[in-house]
Structure formats: C-alpha cells, structure tokens
C-alpha cells in the first residue's frame, strides 16, 4: 500500500514538473527564434546602411 502510494506521488510530481519544464522550454524556444529573426533583420539593415554609405563615399571620391 505504501509503496504504491509513494510511486503514485513520485510520478505525479514528475509529470507536473515535466509538463511545466517542457512548456517553458517550448515558449522560450519560440521567444528565442523570434528574437533571432529580429536580430537578423536588424543586422541586414545595418549592413545595407553601411553599404549605401560606402557607395556614397566612393561616388564623392570619384
């Protein structure tokens, strides 16, 4: 009786913890992927801006 109860309690705690950790991990992964997209877009914008600046300078020097 006691062994059965201990097994039930252990697995219940494990199931709750597991669901919480997996949900948190899924949400955090989604957040990270969105932030990565934002980071990449920002990086592309900065690179394009730098390129335009370099072109302008080259044009003036000519």
């Amino acid at each position, binding site marked *: 009786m006691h062994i*059965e109860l201990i097994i039930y309690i252990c697995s219940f705690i494990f199931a709750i913890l597991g669901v919480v950790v997996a949900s948190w991990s899924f949400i955090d992964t989604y957040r990270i992927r969105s932030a990565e997209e934002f980071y990449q877009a920002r990086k592309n914008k900065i690179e394009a801006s730098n390129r335009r600046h370099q072109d302008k300078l080259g044009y003036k020097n000519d």
Partner: protein
Amino acid sequence: MNNELRIKWLMYTVFIGVLPIGLRLLLTSWGVGISYFSTSDFIAFGFVLHISILNEIEHVVGQRVWKTVQNGMSIIAIFVYGAFSCGLMLHESGVSEVNLDAVRNTAMSAALVSLLISLSVFYRPNQVLGEELCTSS
C-alpha cells in the same frame, strides 16, 4: 540542432526506444500469448530518452539556464525510472504490496511526459545568434 542531427536523434533514440513496445504489439497482433504492454518496455523507453537528452545537451552552445533546467529534469527522471525498476524487482521478489498495474500505468504516463520533454529539447536550436540580445541568461 540542425536538421540532420535532429533526424539522427529521432531515429537513434525515439525509434529505438519505441522498438520493444512496437515489437510486443506486433507479436500480440499475430496471436502470441503475451500482454499488450509491459512496464519494463516503458522504463527502457524513458531511460533511453533521458540519457540521450543528457548527451545532446552537451552539444548546445551557451544557453546555460536552459541547459541546467533540462539536465536537472533528466536526472530527476532517471531517479523516477529507477524507482519504477525497483518496484518491478520488489514485485518479482514476491512483495505483494507492489501493484504491478499501478506501476505500469504510472510508467506509461511518465514515458509520455518524457516524450514531451524530449520534443522540447528536439525543437531547441543548439546555437543562438546574438545570444546576448536574445536570452535572459
């Protein structure tokens, strides 16, 4: 993780873990006189998933908080599956207090939770671009 690693991980861990459960179901469908589900199959499945998670986490760059949480969860899971094995052995030794059906049902639920955890590891990228901007760790 990149796609190739993901497929490898899925094939080498989830598929191999599910293999004994699938074989048992196949044999049962052919009329072999065994029960549909066995506790030891689910325990083995859980062990395979969590040991592979521990191995895969080693390849993740940075993301220290996430790694610590997943490591801790896998260690707890290995203890839980160890407890299930202990219950099985006690039953085998003749301790009548251990209800085999209860152990089997809880092992099945725990294996389902382990699959959910391993899916959450499976979808995680192993390297984050601009991590200093993206993560809270």
